[in-house]
């Protein structure tokens, strides 16, 4: 029993957001470019381990309570589905890459696959069968996991934790790190605009009609990082690991209403003026006070794109991961306007992990903190 509890303790501490997000992100980058990880037996092994983990964990009452909640069932299913399709597409992409390397056409271009298929029975009949199966699944799901009806809405007594619909939990998780106007308004808008802009930014014609990784490395990595790490992972975190008062709870931890966590966060201006120069900031003009943050932000969105457009340095990380820090290649390919939009969107996306890391490591609250005009970054 003691060993089990110790193991649970390890899992609980590993799932603490700083560790958990970092671990998953690092794993993501380590794994995405390695052919060896995308073979069927590896995928099967990962799937089996994950399923076994879930199955064994359900013996823990606290784990069961959260995972088996009717609200959360689709998210559990989603995790496995995303894992499956992630793996499927990647392994097909690598399969094609191998074929291309061998001088063969991609699988989708083989004569057998290129052949026409019939509307009947291949399309319509299959669709109908799928509809029937879909209805069966939904009916049984609807019966077995009843939709919970909760208390009458009461502004004086909101549920704790107050959770957004599961598909917005990623946004809600962003609220931990950003001001509502950024996390709730600017970033969601940028996500939508950015997704809409993809066809105009990504003009790489390769990969049309077939899966490939080598030919679209940056595109796929960037997108999957944004989707899997910054969205799905945060949804999962918000669903399973955020309890009362939006406090973090490990998967085996009881959601105790009285659990306390200290949130001793500090603004950049305080780091700069108070800790560095021992100055009194209470009398400072807010623009002077926030100057370091403003400069930093302006540098990030204004100067950094220019620097990136000029440089073409390549960095290689331990583990054999190599990537370009400089984006001159892209600048040349995309032209100034398209490049500006592209870099802005990418930088905006990376603002989230950067802010996360700053929060975890430096307890940084805001880079620019101007509560006087309700403006914080």
């Amino acid at each position, binding site marked *: 029993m003691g060993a089990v509890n110790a193991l649970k303790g390890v899992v609980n501490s590993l799932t603490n957001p700083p560790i958990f997000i970092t671990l998953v992100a690092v794993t993501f980058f380590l794994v995405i470019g390695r052919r060896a990880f995308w073979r069927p037996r590896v995928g099967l092994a990962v799937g089996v381990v994950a399923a076994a983990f879930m199955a064994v964990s359900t013996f823990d009452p606290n784990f069961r309570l959260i995972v088996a909640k009717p609200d959360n069932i689709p998210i559990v299913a989603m995790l496995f589905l995303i894992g499956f399709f992630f793996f499927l597409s990647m392994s097909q992409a690598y399969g094609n890459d191998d074929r291309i390397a061998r001088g063969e056409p991609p699988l989708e271009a083989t004569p057998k696959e290129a052949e026409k298929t019939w509307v009947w029975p*291949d399309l319509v009949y299959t669709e109908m069968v799928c509809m*029937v199966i879909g*209805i*069966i699944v939904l*009916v049984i799901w609807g019966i077995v996991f009843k939709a919970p009806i909760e208390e*009458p809405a009461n502004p004086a*007594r909101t549920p704790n934790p107050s959770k957004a619909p599961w598909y917005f939990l990623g946004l809600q998780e962003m609220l931990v790190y950003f001001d509502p106007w950024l996390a709730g308004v600017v970033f969601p808008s940028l996500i939508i605009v950015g997704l809409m802009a993809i066809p105009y930014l990504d003009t790489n014609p390769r990969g049309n009609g077939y899966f490939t990784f080598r030919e679209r490395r940056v595109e796929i990595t960037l997108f999957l990082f944004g989707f899997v790490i910054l969205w799905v992972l945060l949804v999962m975190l918000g669903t399973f690991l955020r309890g009362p008062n939006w406090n973090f709870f490990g998967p085996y931890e009881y959601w105790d209403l009285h659990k306390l966590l200290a949130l001793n966060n500090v603004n950049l201006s305080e780091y700069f003026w108070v800790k560095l120069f021992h100055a009194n900031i209470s009398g400072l003009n807010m623009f002077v006070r926030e100057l370091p943050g403003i400069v930093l932000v302006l540098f990030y969105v204004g100067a950094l794109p220019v620097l990136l457009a000029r440089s073409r340095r390549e960095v290689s990380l331990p583990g054999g991961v190599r990537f370009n820090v400089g984006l001159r290649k892209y600048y040349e390919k995309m032209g100034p306007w398209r490049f500006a939009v592209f870099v802005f969107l990418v930088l905006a996306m990376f603002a989230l992990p950067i802010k996360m890391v700053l929060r975890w490591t430096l307890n940084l609250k805001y880079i620019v903190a101007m509560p006087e005009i309700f403006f914080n970054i």
Partner: protein
Amino acid sequence: MPPAKPEPGRDPEMAERTIKLNLVFALTSIGLLLAFSYMVWDDYNREWKGYQKRFNGLEVKLTQDQVQQALGKVDAARRQQLQAQLAQGEKEIAAHRDEVRKAEQDSSKLDAEWYRTDQEYRFTKADIDVARYNYEEAAHDSSRGAERKRRRLDDLTRKWEALRLQLEDVNARKAEAAKRLQELEKTKLDAENAQKEMYAEYNRLEEKLHKIEPGVVSFVRNLPVIDFANPSLKINQIMPTGLQDDVVFTGTPKVDRCTTCHLGIDKRGFENAPQPFTTHPNFEFYLQGPHPVEKVGCTSCHQGRGRATGFVNAAHTASSVDEEKKWGRYSGTASYHGLHFWDYPMMARGHTEAQCMKCHQGMVEVPRATSLNTGLLLIERYGCYGCHKIKGWEGFRKVGPDLTRITSKTNEEWIYRWIKEPKGFRPTRMPQIWDVRVDETAEQKHRNDTEANAVIAYLVSNAGAAEPYPPPPAGDLEAGRKLFESVGCLACHRVGNDRRGLNEGFDAAAFRTHGPNLDGTGSKVNAGWLYAWVRNPRGYWHETRMPNLRLTDKEAADVTAYLMSLKNDGFASRPRPAIDAKVRDDIVREYLVAASTPIKEVEQKLASMDERQRTLFVGEKTIGRYGCFGCHTITGFEKTAPIGVELTEEGSKLVERLDFGFEEGKIPHTLPGWVHRKLLEPRVFDKDKVKRPEELLRMPKFWVGDDEADAIVTGVLSFTKEQVPMAAQRQLSADDRFVARGQRLIREKNCQGCHQVGERGGAFREIVKANLEAEQKDTLQVVGLSPPLLYNDKEKIGEGARVQTAWLHDFIKDPSKKIRPWLQVRMPTFEFSEDETNVVTHFFASLDKVPYPYEQKPELQAPMVAAGHDLFTRWQCIKCHVVAGKLPNQEPAFMAPDLANVPGRLRAAWLAQWLADPQKIQPGTRMPSNFPEKPEENAFPEILGGDQHQQIEAVRSYLLTLGPGGPPVGGEKPKAARTAAAGGPGR
């Protein structure tokens, strides 16, 4: 030309795929059918249906038993007789077969004729209505056809009249034919009717049984899908009009579906059935009668979610940890997990009366709600409102004595031992403040001693240098004891564990514990203070409820001598640890730090205080912290806000707002469970928590018992925020309001310690009885020697109907003018304000619904007065009654009030009732009932013909002529009618 459409038959690959998909489709279709069947079944298979089926079984069984019983009641002999009669009737009919047949044929023919005529009659009536309408319209438009239409109306009317005559004729003939037939078949019909009557109960039950017994029809009616039409298993619901469930932003109409499962709730015969089928323990009162279920519903009183049809969804509340365990199966958890999405969980068993209050507002006591009334009384007695604000209770006096002059009453040695453990001295409602944690440490106890010492220092130093009372004159201890036991002290006080008159309800709520237990008084107070106190309690404390018994100096000295002899030496010699300066200084530091004193200045500040100042500082802070001033007036705390949580809406508190600490799982996870625990162990929720001294819980321990706590919980739960619409509340009449005000005062002054008012009160009778027993006298004298009954609940008559308002007013103001001077017990002087006096007089008048304050005087007739005098003499009324101060030659117990007071004191209407039947008004009175209803039983039939009413009227008339000087001049023959009152109201 387009390529030919590929046909499955032509393209083998396509055919193969189609066949494969056909198979898949077939399988999924079966799957879909199964899924749909599962859906229908799941929709059909409801928790409540199982209960209904089980109840149906119980009801069928009960009805079968009842059918057997009904059959058993049928008299076998009578049944045989009726059967014989029936056979005889058949025989008779057979004998007159032709006649009978003819009569039947006649009757049948007439029926046919009646049918024709009646139909035509009715149709003509309809035609008339049409014709009238047509004519009216035409006439209004002055149309040309009007005249023609009028004629048609007239024709039809004539036809209708003729038809009516015809119909009446047919009816008459029909009746005649039927009568003839009946005469021919009389014997048989009579037997049949008698049989029907005899089997009425049986037939009714059989019919019912037939209706409820499961069979093919009910099976089909209840089949899935078909059951939309008229199933026998269906949801029952009650929709009380005007009542709503509060769902925060709005109200939704109350819909109570409780009777879907609680099927036996309003049916006799299920008293011992298992839940949920048990009959309501008092359904005549709560489902019918004053609380009809169709108007009140179920959840108005029981709370819970009325719309639910499942156990958990209805928000059932477990009343104990055991029950929570037992109910785990309903929520599918080890321990019952109730519905926490509903803000009004069902009342736990035993606390439902808490809900009475929201509709019965403004009442001091809700009739029949014993637990609630006791709970509220206990809250009042214990003075919970001193620390906990309760809306509507603000005006109440602090329950504890005034401490601003404490030094003249007692000494600090005693106070220390008292406040450390009040119950160690004598039974008391004073709670214990220190040493009552379940996890008290020795260190904590040491600190407590220091705090107690500091509190005393503060109290003593703020009591000022009161002038000491002079020592009392020497008194006779034995005479004092006798006086103490007879003059009335024991109506409110007791000594030691005296349990006379204390046997029902809780001690803390008894009339005889209204005042303090006087055990150990000699070890507590100064004799001089006591002597002054018993002579005039208000002299020392103007808010005291203790009235003045008008003791003479000698009596006061005797009583003082007796009370001073009540010692508790063991208590007085308990150790009193000296104040520990180090601990005290630590406490000073603590309070200074808690008050945000800069840490550096704490030591300076401490150093700037001398020993005494430090002690007083700790004393003041400790009193402020524990809220002693909630119950006692203490100098320096006149305006301090009370320390407790407001209780105004405590009954609506959500369970998640309660801190169960580490008691979770040991007590029910409910509001009543929490409050109950809090009352028993007020500081238990601190257990195992790491807290600074100033954060610790501080509610003192009242040492209430389990049941007592239950009653208080009911009281607390009645403080709800729920708003019942005015129309649904019980509306108090003007009289009800006066009664309520009076009840309030009566409770405050503990009138029921001596007098019985309604069902309760008169505790002092027990004392009189005990005194009589001690003297080995006849205990039948109890009624005569006790304070009178002031309201007879059974007969609904009391003091208001008896005495005139003006007299009552004067008597309450100055009770020294005694009605029965021979009584040892005294009506005390309460020093009521004029307002309070009016409250009392109005209370009695409103209770009896008699005129207030003026009343019509009866006209007196001279002959009646004379006859009355005659009866008065013959009945020898003066044998027992005092007349104008002249005492009769009797034992005190047999003496009766002065009749000279009658005109000024009694109401005329009451006199008549009293004379007719005194026992009815004052059970146990020695007054005989001399005027029987029947004249032949009358002792003096020659007077006024022995008529009860006349004779009573005569005696009353005579009595009303009496006055302070005895009978009027020449009492035998008053000159003329005169009004009676010498001192009637309206002077």
